[in-house]
């Protein structure tokens, strides 16, 4: 097995020795490499690598040596831009940097034993910036014997791969954003969206579990980024029994954490280098944002109607389910028919999931206070169906029209139960799951159908 990574190395000076040893060790740990080799290669002509001692005065000595080898002030033909053709208007004058790069290796291999980089006591691995500051990238490949994760009896499960990738992604983030997101991610959840991406990414000829895990983790980070902002908008104090970012770290932090992880997720997806996947996810995120604005706007015409509900849910929830399935299939190079079928599967499943989520507002076991959707005037199908009841519907509308105090929340809940709206929504959700699975009929699913069926059922099994 070979694991592939890209390491982002931002630099801040013209010449800089960036110690990347701990980040490389993190990569080895996250990949589970026990014994083997870590290969790294600069993806730039003016970024070299070095294995040396991290001692500040030595860094100055080394920089001075580079300056002597190819002085900045000396004339270089490469910098005589009028004599060159096809160059950008902002082409840097960096002949000295290219010359210095000649004396540094662009690639190196570090051995790994027992999960640790094999380095001498004073050895550190450096990315050597020769023409900074810039955003740099190193290509990594890890090969050798990878650890078998506990409880898998062999290859890691999709869930374990997703969780490992999420842990790996969070590991490198600044603490200020990492800690609140880690709390959210570790609070649990079924990881439905990333698992849909993982399964869908097995359907084409170019399936790669590690690339699929990167996509899956990015999808989950987008989901959590939207939740961080949702919780701020809804003034929610808890999520899955834990304090929200807005409640714990404060509103300023919640806004920033949401933006950070939205940006990070889009970067991780862009780094996969599949333009179709990038477009699919971008379209989904836009749909989510539009429907969130719709959702807030429609609270004025609360509780709304079925058409309004579907419009919001298609964006708010189903868009990311759809994108997870579609992008996974695209990443694996699946054929257009498979991609389209999975797209429809994901959308139907996403709508079913939201319906079952609506029902949790009437359950004691949901981890959030009962009646929260009513208090926050969230568009919800049980309420819409309850208002359609010939006998009780007018009273439900009357209660929802005014300010909703706790007595009214309780009465609305009782009325919804009495109309049979919950059973109707439950049946509809299960019907949508059946329709979603029907979309997969006749599709060559390469043995993943049972897992897709399990996932689909688990999206609505919370109803029971």
């Amino acid at each position, binding site marked *: 097995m070979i694991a592939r990574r890209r390491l*982002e190395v*931002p630099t801040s000076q013209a010449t800089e020795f960036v110690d990347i040893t701990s980040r490389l060790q993190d990569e080895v740990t996250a990949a589970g490499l026990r014994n083997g080799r870590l290969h790294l290669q600069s993806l730039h002509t003016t970024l070299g690598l070095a294995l040396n001692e991290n001692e500040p005065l030595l860094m100055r000595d080394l920089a001075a040596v580079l300056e002597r080898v190819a002085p900045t002030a000396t004339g270089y033909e490469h910098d005589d831009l009028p004599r060159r053709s096809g160059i*950008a208007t*902002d082409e840097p004058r960096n002949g000295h940097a290219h010359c210095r790069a000649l004396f540094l290796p662009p690639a190196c291999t570090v051995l790994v034993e027992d999960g640790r980089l094999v380095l001498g006591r004073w050895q550190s691995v450096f990315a050597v910036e020769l023409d900074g500051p*810039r*955003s740099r990238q190193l290509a990594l490949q890890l090969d050798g014997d990878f650890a078998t994760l506990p409880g898998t009896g062999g290859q890691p499960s999709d869930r374990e791969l997703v969780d490992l990738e999420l842990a790996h992604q969070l590991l490198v*983030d*600044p*603490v*200020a*954003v990492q800690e609140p997101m880690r709390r959210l991610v570790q609070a649990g959840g079924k990881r439905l969206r990333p698992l849909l991406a993982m399964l869908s990414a097995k359907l084409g000829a170019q399936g790669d579990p590690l690339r699929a895990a990167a996509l899956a983790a990015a999808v989950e980070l987008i989901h959590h980024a*939207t939740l961080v*902002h949702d919780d*701020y*908008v809804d003034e929610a104090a808890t999520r899955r029994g834990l304090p929200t970012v807005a409640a714990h*770290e404060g*509103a*300023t*932090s*919640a*806004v*920033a*954490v*949401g*933006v*950070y992880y*939205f*940006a*990070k997720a*889009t*970067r991780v997806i*862009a*780094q996969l*280098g599949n*333009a179709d996947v*990038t*477009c699919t*996810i*971008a*379209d989904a*995120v*836009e749909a*989510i*944002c*539009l429907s*969130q*604005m719709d959702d*807030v706007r429609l609270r004025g015409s609360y509780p709304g109607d079925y058409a309004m509900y579907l419009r919001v849910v298609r964006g708010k929830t189903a868009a990311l389910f759809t994108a997870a399935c579609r992008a996974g299939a695209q990443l694996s190079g699946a054929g257009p028919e498979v991609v389209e079928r999975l797209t429809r599967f994901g959308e139907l499943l996403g709508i079913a999931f939201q319906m079952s989520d609506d029902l949790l507002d009437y359950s004691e076991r949901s981890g959030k206070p009962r009646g929260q959707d009513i208090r926050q005037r969230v568009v919800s199908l049980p309420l819409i169906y309850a208002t359609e009841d010939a006998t009780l519907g007018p009273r439900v509308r009357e209660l929802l029209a005014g300010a909703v105090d706790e007595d009214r929340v309780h009465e609305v809940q009782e009325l919804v139960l009495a109309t049979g709206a919950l059973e109707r929504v439950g049946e509809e959700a299960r019907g949508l799951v059946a329709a979603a699975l029907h979309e997969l009929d006749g599709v060559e699913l390469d043995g993943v159908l049972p897992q897709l069926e399990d996932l689909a059922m688990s999206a609505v099994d919370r109803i029971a």
Partner: protein
Amino acid sequence: MSVAVDGIEADLAGLESIWDGGLGAAYAFYRRQAAPPVALAAAMVESALALQVLGGRPPDPPRLLLGDLCLARASRLLAGTRDQRLQIGFARAMEHVAAAAAGGPAAAPLRTLLVAVIAEAG
């Protein structure tokens, strides 16, 4: 700079209200150095983080959501360019600024970062 000539009207749907509040001026600035979709994406990122008062007094919910829509629209515009370097560079710039706003390491001004990304992508 002209919205009609540049053909970006459709990409402004839902964001017309902020055109005169800074989006238009930012677009004019970036348009001097980039093609319409990239310039608009950069202007939208800038407007988004201004709407969301990143690092400052938290915005009211509609402004937060409008900012999110700007970011999403920018992401879609960049996806349409199929330029991986731009996509990664823009995301990196947002990450730096957002991390700083959350109390992380200081970051250069967003405009400086975006201009550098556009220049580097050539």
